[in-house]
């Protein structure tokens, strides 16, 4: 019978967040099915779990495995895992869809990760800068990037502590071999929280709008082995090129053409070596820090290697 007891305790634990379930009751139910009705244990367990799910109004996949592992964000490397995390809300973004109640970036000592909460889960709102213990979140993967999804069963506990959010920025280096379209002097959609880059004066979402000028560079760093796409925001672009937003606007005004700005930047930047570090966002590295590699490279190490083959 101790076998049934174990099952009973596991089930009670699984539902502990949602129902007032007593392991003895669970054991009784299991026992009834197994002993009286000759139901195999697995099937009995399934049936009992289902009846509790009904009672709690939950879907099976919303149910935690009971006793999740508390993990660090950097250790998340699998899709669809149920985990507990203790994180600080680093940044809240504007949800792009009504079905999303909150989206943003959370972080712990090990790194940062996107999180998303859905309207249907009816969760309390997280606040930027606060630390929470999030129980029962699900991991998700998109093109090799992981995120965590909050769901109806997620427990949110605000903690009175601070977390030093880990720096998971990467560093890439190589020759800047291209500056892509959409660089230089651009216009962004002025709609609240939109900031999309306009194409011919049109925003994908809001149609024809009066854009706001901005500067950025989408560049390609290539080290001969791999390419890395890099985005330089306005500040970094101004620092790299020495062209301020105002100057760029003047240049464009004089030429009656905004492309003169990116042409000038191309002349300045393409063909030289840079080291760029910053967080990765999708396929881009967002440049927080850029260093032009001007120190003479050391041939010794390569020379030794070359002679050794």
């Amino acid at each position, binding site marked *: 019978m101790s076998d049934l007891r174990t099952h009973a305790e596991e089930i009670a634990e699984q539902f502990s967040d949602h129902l007032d379930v007593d392991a003895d009751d669970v054991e009784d139910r299991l026992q009834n099915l197994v002993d009286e009705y000759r139901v195999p244990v697995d099937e009995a367990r399934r049936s009992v779990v289902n009846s509790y799910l009904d009672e709690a109004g939950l879907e099976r996949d919303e149910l935690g495995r009971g006793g999740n592992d508390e993990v660090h964000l950097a250790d998340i490397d699998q899709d669809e895992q149920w985990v507990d995390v203790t994180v600080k809300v680093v940044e809240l973004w504007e949800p792009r869809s009504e079905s999303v109640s909150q989206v943003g970036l959370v972080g712990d000592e090990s790194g940062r990760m996107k999180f998303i909460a859905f309207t249907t889960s009816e969760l309390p709102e997280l606040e930027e800068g606060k630390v929470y213990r999030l129980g029962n979140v699900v991991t998700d993967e998109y093109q090799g990037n992981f995120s965590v999804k909050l769901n109806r069963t997620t427990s949110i506990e605000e903690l009175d502590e601070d977390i030093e959010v880990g720096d998971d920025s990467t560093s890439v280096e190589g*020759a800047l*071999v*291209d500056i892509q379209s959409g660089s230089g002097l651009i216009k962004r959609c002025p709609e609240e929280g939109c900031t999309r880059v306009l194409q011919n004066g049109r925003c994908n979402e809001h149609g024809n709008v009066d854009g706001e000028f901005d500067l950025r560079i989408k560049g*390609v760093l*290539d*080290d*001969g*082995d*791999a*390419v890395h796409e890099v985005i330089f925001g306005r500040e970094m672009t101004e620092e790299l090129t020495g062209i301020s937003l105002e100057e760029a606007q003047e240049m464009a005004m004089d030429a009656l053409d905004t492309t003169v700005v990116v*042409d000038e930047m*191309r*002349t300045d930047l*393409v*063909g*030289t*070596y840079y080291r760029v570090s910053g967080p990765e966002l999708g396929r881009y590295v967002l440049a927080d820090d850029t260093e032009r*590699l*001007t*120190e*003479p*490279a*050391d*041939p010794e190490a*390569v*020379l030794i*290697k*070359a*002679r050794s*083959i």
Partner: protein
Amino acid sequence: MSSQEVPTREVARRVFAEEFNDASYTFKESDDERAPVYLLLPSGEKANRIFFVGTLTEKEDVGEDNEYWRGRIVDPTGTFFVYAGQYQPEAASTLRDLEAPAYVSVVGKPRTYETDDGSVNVSVRPESISVVDAATRDRWVVETAQRTVERLERFDDEGNEYARMAREEYDLPTDRYKSMAVSALESLDESGGDELGGDDADTASPEPST
């Protein structure tokens, strides 16, 4: 996972002029008309794009009706030929405006053409040409030596299909590319021995007058 993957950008290989000019065999990896064309490097790698830095020593408009600029760009091992015409307007205008000698970096695509005597010549169709400094040029030499050595190290690896192709298509001894890399690196040590004839071992860039 998706079959609709965005075509990835081709890496710009690092290759010295000597090895580049030894290459002649090109191939595609799919029947698609727009599939990238690769030049097979003798050290066993495919190159759809290259990046190099050298000294522009001569430039000439060799076009008849339209401007068609040819540039000779020299690295420690040999000469790259670049051709830029009306379809490479930016590179063409850079070449037009440049005053040789000057350190330049080039991103471009390998092009091959058969000469009248049946041999194959290889040149570069530039995507961009930029004026750079001596430090950038030295960095490129070291980097290119490193990438070359790495290719040579992999040359005998089982399953290195481009090495296998290189053996079949070229049958060149790879030793020469090793000594090429070594002497390119050694040339950096010879202080002041840069192609611009500067009498100063300083790494300061010779400012090209544009």
